[in-house]
């Protein structure tokens, strides 16, 4: 009786293990929430192209947390939306594609253009009413929303807009880009920031210093849109598995990956032009 139970358990365990090892390679990653929409699209296309031989598991736990996962070996790669910091020892940053950080307001706000200086003043609590921002058509108190300290988006905003000064205490820091988009959508007085991939119904992206937040305006050199940024894949210095390296090369340089990146809200930076 007992032997039978044991045998059944063993067979069941084998059943769990075999398909995973014989069929597909699973690559585990974690990190940036801002990068997630584009990465998921790339994963899906790559898995399809390799006929299911390579699969991906990606946990969007924030860029900084993702780097930590790579450092302690729980993830094979991490997505990150900020440039390397001294605390990222032991990892290599690979530029994957470009993204623009859009400044968004509610559609009820008539504002079309905003300067970096104005955004800075709003998030530092120096401008608190929409009547101090010409063209908004509102006379109400501004509700600035931003990200909490977990994530590359916050770090990028801090560097690019706030000159590394902390946001004022009236900025409501939310835990994800999706919640920022939601807050801007629901509050006519709100202003928020999030990546290209989050643009869509319910929030209005402003021109920054006169340049619209569109993928066509975001480029490598010169960076036309003032809040353009690279999104990175972070891998351990100790080396990358061949399967992962193949995916990275494909996503960065192949012509097939470019439209996927564009469609999911990123801007291809290094992908070769498709042959016509």
């Amino acid at each position, binding site marked *: 009786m007992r032997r039978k139970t044991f045998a059944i358990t063993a067979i069941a365990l084998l059943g769990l293990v075999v398909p995973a090892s014989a069929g597909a390679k699973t690559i585990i990653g974690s990190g940036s929430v801002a990068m997630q929409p584009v990465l998921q699209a790339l994963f899906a296309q790559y898995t399809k192209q390799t006929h299911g031989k390579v699969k991906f598991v990606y946990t969007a736990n*924030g860029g*900084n*947390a993702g780097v*930590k996962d790579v450092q302690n070996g729980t993830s094979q790669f991490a997505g990150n939306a900020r440039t390397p910091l*001294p*605390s990222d020892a032991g990892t290599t940053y690979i530029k994957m594609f470009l993204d623009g950080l859009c400044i968004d307001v509610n559609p009820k706000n008539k504002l079309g253009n905003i300067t970096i200086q104005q955004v800075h003043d709003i998030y530092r*609590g*120096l401008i*608190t*009413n929409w009547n101090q921002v010409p063209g908004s058509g509102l006379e*109400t*108190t*501004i*509700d*600035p*929303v931003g990200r*909490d*300290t*977990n*994530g590359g988006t916050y770090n990028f905003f801090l560097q690019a807009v706030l000159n590394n000064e*902390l946001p*004022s*205490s*009236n*900025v*409501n*820091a*939310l*835990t994800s880009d999706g*919640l920022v988009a*939601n*807050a801007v959508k*629901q*509050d*006519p*007085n*709100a202003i928020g920031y999030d990546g290209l991939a989050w643009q869509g119904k319910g929030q209005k992206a402003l021109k920054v210093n006169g340049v619209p937040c569109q993928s066509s305006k975001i480029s490598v050199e010169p960076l036309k849109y003032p809040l353009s940024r690279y999104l990175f894949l972070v891998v351990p210095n100790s080396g990358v598995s061949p399967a992962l390296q193949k995916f990275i090369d494909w996503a960065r340089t192949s012509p097939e990956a470019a439209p996927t990146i564009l469609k999911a809200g990123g801007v291809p930076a290094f992908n070769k032009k498709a042959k016509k």
Partner: protein
Amino acid sequence: MEVEYLPEDGPRVPDQRAERLLGALVCTVVALLLALIATVFFRAWPSFAHNGLAWFGAGGNVDEQINQIYLSGLGGSEGYVYTFHAWQLLWSTFLITGGAVLLALFSSLFVAVFLVEFAPEWMSNVLAPVVRFLASVPSVIYGLLGVLVIVPFIGNHLVTEPQKASVAGVISLSGYSLLAGVLILTVMIAPLMTSIFSDGIRSVRPGWLEGSLALGVNRWRTTWKIAVRTARPAIVAGTVLATARAIGEAVMLAMVSGSVAFAPNPADGLIFIFEPSRPLAPTIVKNIDLLGSKPANSTLFAIAAVLLLSAATFSLAGWAARRSMSKYGATA
């Protein structure tokens, strides 16, 4: 004559195997728990040691302090900064937990009395499982509900423009508020309390109620004076359990209560319920990324230690109160 109770080759103490296994399991669990407590306090120690009792006091902005602590951890160990005054977080925890428990206590008590004593049978048959189900809904769902419904409603309809302008630049009254946190927390813990309260009231001996009714006391008075009074240990137990859950609630509050370490001041008038604030547990969630910095790590563990200690205090207090009251009748 000798009697062989056991076969020669059988195990010597067959009837004790289960006990020993279970005993070992319990010991492991207790050991793990002790290890957990020891780890938390060991990690938290530097933060308490550097601040002393001022840790619990007021002074400065908690968010700026956390940022300073984090930045100091990126350099060498001699430059570590630990200065941390958690008053805003403690006060916020007190306000949100206290408000929610108070609201939930009254509403659940009435609901429980109605369910047990007054509701027709079909109704309590339907409602009892519903209450039990509500008590087990994950908190993220309540958080989503808050972000999508309650927060925008408060921000767009309850808060007025002059109120917002009066605090502009300091905090924003955009709906992420004490009120949202308290309301949703009440909804979260009330089912838990209701189900424990109604179990308590149901277990009151029928003879006592019948005796009271036979003396001509009306039904409402009988319920209030006999049933609810006898069920007091259950009421205390439910309240303590609910308080422990409310204090530890992190995800939902991180979503709706506003993210600023701000101490809402009742002296500001009614506006104070619209002010954002952030209790202890969501502070850990919001700053989880700073764990890599040694002093920030210690500060977050110090917050965890305070949460752990308060949960332990509550369960002890609940036990003591229950014990002194249980001589009057029904137990929880």
